[in-house]
């Protein structure tokens, strides 16, 4: 393997992992506060289609990205309304959102299937992007990817290094106690549901505006579901979530490369590996070993009805 090939692979792997990382970070934020939203796939598709349509109609990438984020946030609000306001079952609500988003995005996007878009251009940071191997991968990417990295950093700091993070953890671990301490549980959960879904919407925008700047039905190809598993796999830690997402991105490029090198495996087995990986992680996490402390927030997916 020559150096340009490795540089190209790194570059592509980072791009492949970014939509997943955005979605998984969104899931993480919400789940730390106890909000279990299984509707990620639908939200991501809605984000992707909105970004694409707005961008095609207005010609502005910023508007497209904003619209994706906004649509994501409003789907988060819809979910919060159902689960925090009406106390609907969160699992059923999330699944409904996934199906709803997939159907609606296909409907909205049907007129945009054949339309091309140039896609958000990459930045080339002078000098640094010329570095061998890592230059293009780290310093020649598009602005949304850098935004994703910034968001990951902010998420990590807020969740694990700030008072706000502690408050969120309290809400996710024991909403009853948090409520008695004067924390507004429903409001916080609504907020995190919106922020989380907004990031998933942004992940959708990454797909339709950067990674493959076109619209096709179901283009998220299961990333919303994988992101949900990633968060479990990473034990609800920001660093782990980001690492797992990029590992997944790397893996998806790597298995094409293996095929190209004649190191082939049945495609069905290959397609299965990420899920086997997740199952293994779940088994390890459920045990009593060193990793078992990284468990789910205690009140994850439980509705909280304040009695006052």
């Amino acid at each position, binding site marked *: 393997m020559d150096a*340009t*090939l490795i540089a*190209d*692979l790194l570059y*592509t792997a980072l791009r*492949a992992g970014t939509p997943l990382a955005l979605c998984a970070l969104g899931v993480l934020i919400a789940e730390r506060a106890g909000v279990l939203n299984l509707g990620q796939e639908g939200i991501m598709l809605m984000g992707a289609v909105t970004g694409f349509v707005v961008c095609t109609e207005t010609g502005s990438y910023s508007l497209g990205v904003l619209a994706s984020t906004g649509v994501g946030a409003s789907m988060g609000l819809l979910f919060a309304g159902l689960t925090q306001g009406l106390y609907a079952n969160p699992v059923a609500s999330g699944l409904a959102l996934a199906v709803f988003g997939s159907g609606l995005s*296909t409907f909205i*996007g*049907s007129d945009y*299937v*054949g*339309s*091309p878009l*140039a*896609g958000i251009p990459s930045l080339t940071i002078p000098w640094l992007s010329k570095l061998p191997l890592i230059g293009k991968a780290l310093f020649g990417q598009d602005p949304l990817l850098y935004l994703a990295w910034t968001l990951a950093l902010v998420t990590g700091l807020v969740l694990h290094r700030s008072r706000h993070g502690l408050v969120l953890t309290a809400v996710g671990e024991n909403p009853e106690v948090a409520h008695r301490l004067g924390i507004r549980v429903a409001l916080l959960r609504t907020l995190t549901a919106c922020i989380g879904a907004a990031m998933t919407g942004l992940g959708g925008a990454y*797909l339709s505006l950067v*990674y*493959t*700047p*076109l*619209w*096709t*039905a*179901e*283009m998220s*190809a299961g990333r919303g579901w994988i992101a949900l598993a990633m968060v479990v796999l990473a034990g609800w830690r920001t660093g782990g979530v980001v690492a797992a997402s990029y590992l997944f991105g790397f893996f*998806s*490029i790597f298995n*094409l*490369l293996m*095929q*190209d090198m*004649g190191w*082939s495996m*049945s*495609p*069905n087995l*290959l*397609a299965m590996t990420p899920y086997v990986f997740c199952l293994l992680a779940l088994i390890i996490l459920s045990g009593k070993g060193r990793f078992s402390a990284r468990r789910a927030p205690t009140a994850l997916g439980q509705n909280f009805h304040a009695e006052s």
Partner: protein
Amino acid sequence: MHHPPTRLATLLALILVLWPGASPVLAAEPLKVAFVHENPVGQGGWTLSHELAREKIEAHFGDAITTTALDGVVPGGDTERVLTKLARGGQQLIFATSFGHMSAAARVSRRFPRVIFEHAAGYTLGRNLGTYQIRAYQGRYLAGYAAGLVTRTNRLGYVGAFPIPEVMRGINAFTLGAKAANPDAQVDVIWISTWSDASRSREAAELLVSKQADVITHHTETSAVVQAADQRGVWSVGYQTDRSAFAPRHHLVSIAHNWFPIYRDKIQSVLDGNWSPEANWVGLEQDATRLEGWGDKVPESVREQVMAQQSRLLSGDLRVFAGPLTDADGQQQVAAGEVITDEALLKMEWLLEGIGGDVPR
């Protein structure tokens, strides 16, 4: 209040309408034609090319037929259920447009002997089951020829979905065309095991470009491969529909399917009452496969040379699968001096020797 004249007029109109033979409305029931697609039309490509033809069919036949289309009908139990429902629901002619629909179409057709079934790109015939194909490999050959002429690295990349005969024919024909123009041309295939995942297509295309391919083509639904090639500054060959809009800078050419002639002929034969189960092929002669969307940067001489090959194919002077042809296992598939049969084309499950990439099994 009464309006006798109005009532009289209504009565008169009713008599006119109901009088046997008096009204054209009741003259002949339109033929009910249904289409079943595997992928959503919203993914473009193959399904879209069938839908474009359906629109033309409706315009062509007018009131003589009604058409319905269902997409997202995944091969397996679902196909059988949908086909049964359509047959029960009074559809008289059902087109199943995906290779994966073949076994379901064969089973359901046996249960509904009075309904006519037609299946695209397969190889099963029945008493009331016909098949139809486009000789897209002719277009593939011509595009391969163009690719062989423009490549500088002599490496051509091909993103394939599944190793079914339709895809194998395309890869082999593209390779034959490329080698006819440029004996040093090498074709590498990456299999992605999905028709419609844009990300997978893109990743495969990027890998091929990284491995020095400078012309990339695809047998997948989306335009992601064409787009990736353009952004990486290499030539692309689009498939199924004109994809040039996705490659504003470096498009070589697209191979478009035109299903209209075959649908027109099949429906006409049912209307005339002389339909019979046949395996029909339509190709360059019927304008069913054609090169569209030549890129601006393609030299005039390349287009001229490709058109010369097209004339030779049309005149029968040149055949795409002319022997000797040897497959990757070293077996001779077509002997010297012979031309492949249509039956062998339908069941083509081998790749020519020298094509790079592992075929998934």
